[in-house]
């Protein structure tokens, strides 16, 4: 029987001839990535020095740090944390990327999503690098192991294969596809597995859409997501990849824990109802619910096509008085492209508040809601208190639906706004 792409990548980095799901290997990550956050990187830096006597990493190019939370700093402590990160990076000759955007996106732009590579981070949304055939896993506190040791102990995961078929209706996006997967398979449908996606829907989808889906893999219980890199992904990475390694692909006769085929051709816009990232419904069930805040951004959904479909919905309309529409492009590069194409000015003209890329709107440090407010959001999570008061509510929808809600001040189907 053949091997999955995840098994092949872990075989490559563990220098085993072949590994199978269930094997425990010592694997050398090609890249070790982190964003600075209180209690995470500052603790790792301290532990490296005090507990392990490491004052410099040996292969600095394997490491990357992103300053993407608390940007810009709002307190002295936040700025001090960033300075600690800059200082550690300078001392170790480890690159620190700041004000470039949300790290999970920027990591792809900068070529850390090298096809065939193995990447670790403490945050699970790094899974979106799987769009490019990169095995990228959020290992939580185990990240210390990758900072201290050359190799990490890792159990080769099983893979659940999902083939998506059919053409999406206008106004239905990759975001809807992901939440539909959760609806069909449940919040533990891929628990502990790699979620490997393919099928003609994926083949025809933009890289941005694929990144949205892969980004959210953890809400199926998956430890990450992977796609076999196609021409589109390889072309994007050709000029960017930081390593010269051969891309890897699942064999046609690879062993999967489960296989699912999901037809998305009849899919309607989705809404994920608070307070669970798994409570997926058709948006139409909630149409008319009054909302006061809209957030379009995050590592999952603030890319050019998200901004563009929101601008298309808003064309000829204005954001309703009193509605707060925050639009935060996922990266500086995305913001530049959207500006060049006139998308940013279209959003501004319609009444959107645009801010530079930052993680802060997604976890309630900026654009904070008071008790009783309701938001439509393309963020990652809708649990109580994620974007402010625990008595506010977050409804997760696609970018077009955020724009439609901004026009009406209530949850609305975006599709009528997209008809010529």
């Amino acid at each position, binding site marked *: 029987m053949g091997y999955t792409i995840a098994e092949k990548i872990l075989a490559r980095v563990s220098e085993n001839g072949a590994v199978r799901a269930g094997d425990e290997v*010592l694997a050398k990550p090609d890249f070790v990535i982190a964003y600075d956050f209180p209690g995470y990187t500052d603790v790792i830096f301290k532990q490296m020095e005090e507990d392990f006597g490491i004052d410099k990493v040996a292969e600095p190019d394997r490491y990357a740090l992103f300053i993407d939370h608390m940007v810009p700093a709002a307190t002295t402590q936040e700025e001090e944390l960033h300075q600690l990160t800059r200082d550690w990076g300078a001392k170790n000759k480890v690159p620190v990327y700041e004000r470039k955007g949300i790290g999970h996106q920027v990591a792809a732009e900068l070529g850390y999503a090298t096809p065939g590579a193995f990447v670790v981070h403490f945050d699970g949304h790094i899974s979106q690098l799987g769009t490019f055939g990169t095995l990228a896993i959020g290992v939580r*506190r*185990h990240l210390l*192991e990758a900072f201290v040791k050359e190799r990490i*102990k890792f159990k080769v995961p099983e893979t659940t294969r999902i083939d998506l078929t059919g053409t999406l209706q206008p106004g239905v996006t990759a975001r809807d596809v992901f939440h539909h997967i959760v609806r069909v398979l449940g919040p533990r449908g891929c*628990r502990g597995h790699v979620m490997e996606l393919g099928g003609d829907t994926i083949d025809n989808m933009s890289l941005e859409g694929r990144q949205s889906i892969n980004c959210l893999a953890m809400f199926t*219980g998956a430890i990450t997501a992977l796609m076999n890199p196609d021409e589109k992904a390889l072309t994007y990475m050709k000029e960017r990849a930081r390593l010269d390694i051969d891309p890897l692909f699942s064999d046609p006769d690879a062993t999967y824990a489960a296989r699912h085929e999901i037809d998305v051709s009849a899919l309607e816009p989705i809404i994920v109802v608070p307070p*669970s990232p798994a409570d997926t419904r058709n948006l139409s069930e909630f149409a008319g619910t009054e909302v006061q805040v809209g957030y379009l951004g995050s590592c999952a959904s603030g890319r050019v096509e998200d901004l563009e479909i929101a601008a298309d919905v808003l064309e000829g309309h204005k954001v309703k008085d009193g509605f707060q529409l925050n639009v935060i492009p996922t990266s500086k590069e995305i913001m530049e492209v959207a500006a060049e194409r006139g998308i940013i000015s279209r959003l501004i003209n319609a009444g959107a508040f645009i801010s530079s890329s930052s993680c802060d709107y997604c976890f309630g440090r900026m654009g904070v809601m008071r008790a009783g407010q309701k938001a439509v959001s393309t963020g990652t*999570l809708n*649990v109580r208190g994620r974007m402010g008061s625990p008595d506010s509510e977050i409804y997760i929808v696609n970018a077009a639906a955020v724009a439609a809600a901004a026009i009406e001040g209530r949850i609305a189907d975006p599709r009528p706004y997209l008809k010529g």
Partner: protein
Amino acid sequence: MALDNLKGRVAWVFEDEDFDVDQIVGVKNIKIKDPVELGKLAMSAEDPEFAAKVRPGDLLIGNHNFGYGHPHYPPMIGMRQLGIGGVIAESFSPGYWRGEIAMGFPQVACPGVLAAVNRWDEIEIDWASSTFHNHTTGVSLPIEPLSDGDRLMLEAGGLVGYLHARDKEETVG
């Protein structure tokens, strides 16, 4: 080194599937760092006497996919402050599992456990025989064995001890 058996009472049964552990202290308290304060908050919304009733070694029971979502560390910092010795669940969310094992906090996957316990039953995890025992009812169930890495991590009391124990590996520095 062998792991000590977990032995204690069932301090709480989390019956919800896909339980978001942040609810243990409430999301509004998730940024609190003081273990004592977190211990006082733990489950206080459900049972105001929870902290007073718990004894060192008591255990928590969870349903399927325990720890789903974006699990933060403060809830279980609070539980450990109260002396909770570990969590036994039908199954765990992988992110939560990794995070707590790295803290040296025992987690045990035991299919069928939810139906086999009531609050305050005396229970035990026997690592050597990979068995869950409910001494109050006499029911026993097999537990899922730990991976080598997870077992080493628990034996070493968490990630830092584990990494020291791996001294055969070449360090980066």
